[in-house]
């Protein structure tokens, strides 16, 4: 009986969550990509942006939250994420892309010869160079010459070809990779 009561509570919470969250069917655990766009003054204007973004191969679905100036993207599996194309789509519609918000992007963290951190993700296929809003708080995750799988959240404000710069707000390890023993 106790198990049934708990299940009913979970179902009720789930229904409430479905009613409150945006309608876009993004699976839990998927990386999230949100465009912050300014200047969308009316729904008729927003339709122009919608048509441009849905033409991109990487975008399967989208939802526009006009009040917040946000466009939530659901990406097509296996398609490369192109931040240059996203910026061009918003620009071609006549509006301004302020930033691309990245949430829970899982990838391999590495460091290049110049000492810059790189993140390479396979889903979606994309690479970013990383800078850190607060590097001190990420000391435990960052360590020299160690390749780790990490989950990263941050924002992109420069729209250049891969690897574009990603300003990291939060990073957490997914699984440590054993380092080579000396």
């Amino acid at each position, binding site marked *: 009986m106790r198990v049934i009561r708990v299940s009913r509570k979970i179902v009720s919470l789930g229904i409430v969550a479905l009613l409150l969250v945006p309608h876009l069917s993004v699976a839990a655990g998927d990386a999230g990509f949100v465009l912050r766009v*300014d200047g969308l003054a009316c729904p008729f204007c927003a339709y*122009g942006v919608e048509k441009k973004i849905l033409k991109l191969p990487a975008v399967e679905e989208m939802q526009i939250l006009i009040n917040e100036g946000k466009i939530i993207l659901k990406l097509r599996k296996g398609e490369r994420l192109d931040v240059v194309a996203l910026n061009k789509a918003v620009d071609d519609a006549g509006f301004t892309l302020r930033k691309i918000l990245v949430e829970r992007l899982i990838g391999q963290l590495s460091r290049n010869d110049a000492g810059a951190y790189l993140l390479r993700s396979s889903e979606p296929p994309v690479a970013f160079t990383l800078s850190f809003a607060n590097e001190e708080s990420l000391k435990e995750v960052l360590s020299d010459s160690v390749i780790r799988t990490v989950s990263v959240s941050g924002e992109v404000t420069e729209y250049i070809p891969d690897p574009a710069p990603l300003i990291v707000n939060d990073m957490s390890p997914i699984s440590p990779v054993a380092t080579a023993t000396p």
Partner: protein
Amino acid sequence: MNCPMYGVLSSQGSLGMIARIVFMALLATLTPGIAQAQGINTNVALPVAQGEGIWRTQLRALRATDDPSPLDRELRALVAPQTLVYGVTPRLTAFATIPFLLHRDVDARGKSVRRDSAVGGLTLLGRYTFFVDDYAPLSTRRVALLGGVKLPTGADRFGAPTYDPILGAVGTWAANRHEIDVDGLYTITTNRKGFEAGDRLRYDVAYRYRLWPARFGRRASQFNGILELNGIWTDRARRNGNTVRSSGGHTLFVSPGVQFVTRRWILEASVQLPVLQDLNGPQLETDAITVLSLRLPFTLP
């Protein structure tokens, strides 16, 4: 024709010429500047996506009955301007407007003298937005220049069949529930067969307030209330080098309207009421202009 009334309203003779100028001026108020307007009778500087288009169809009904002359003329006209809008680049938008005069009824001393229909001159216009400040969600400030030409493709009785250059500017400030649009358009009329209609200045100010919703939900539609001031100043016409004294003037309309906006269409209605009519000579004064309009987006293949 022997009918004296027809003589007054025909294109023959000085009185007929005056009447023709009067009707042309009145009919000019029925053809809006351009059609990409959040304000219904006012231009805006909001963008049209590159490669995308908008078709705008309107019905504009004019009634003019206040005749200072003893002829007691009345004019009722129904015009359907059709406009195609196309986003050439994110900053450059092209407009093509052609007005269809569906019917024009002219009465004098209680008798119907003329009833006809015609096609007006094609107007081509370009709008280049040189200043853009998208400073927040639902907010933007933009300023654009306008330039174009009215072509002599229409019937004589629906306006002068001349090449008339047009210059202007428009500014838009939108902030969440509020929007203000301001524009000015100057038409330089040219001479044909000794006749030149007066240059024309249109100026408009529109205020739009989103009545519903207070905050957009999942379905992004909105219902707006709009209040506009629409002014038209026309210079006196010239015929064979002589000024036609009973022509030109200044009319200012107050135009309340409503608008329902969705992602895929806009339906709107407005009534233009003259609050100032300072016309030269015995010209008909406008009672009201009623406007009904629909806008639909399209994509060229």
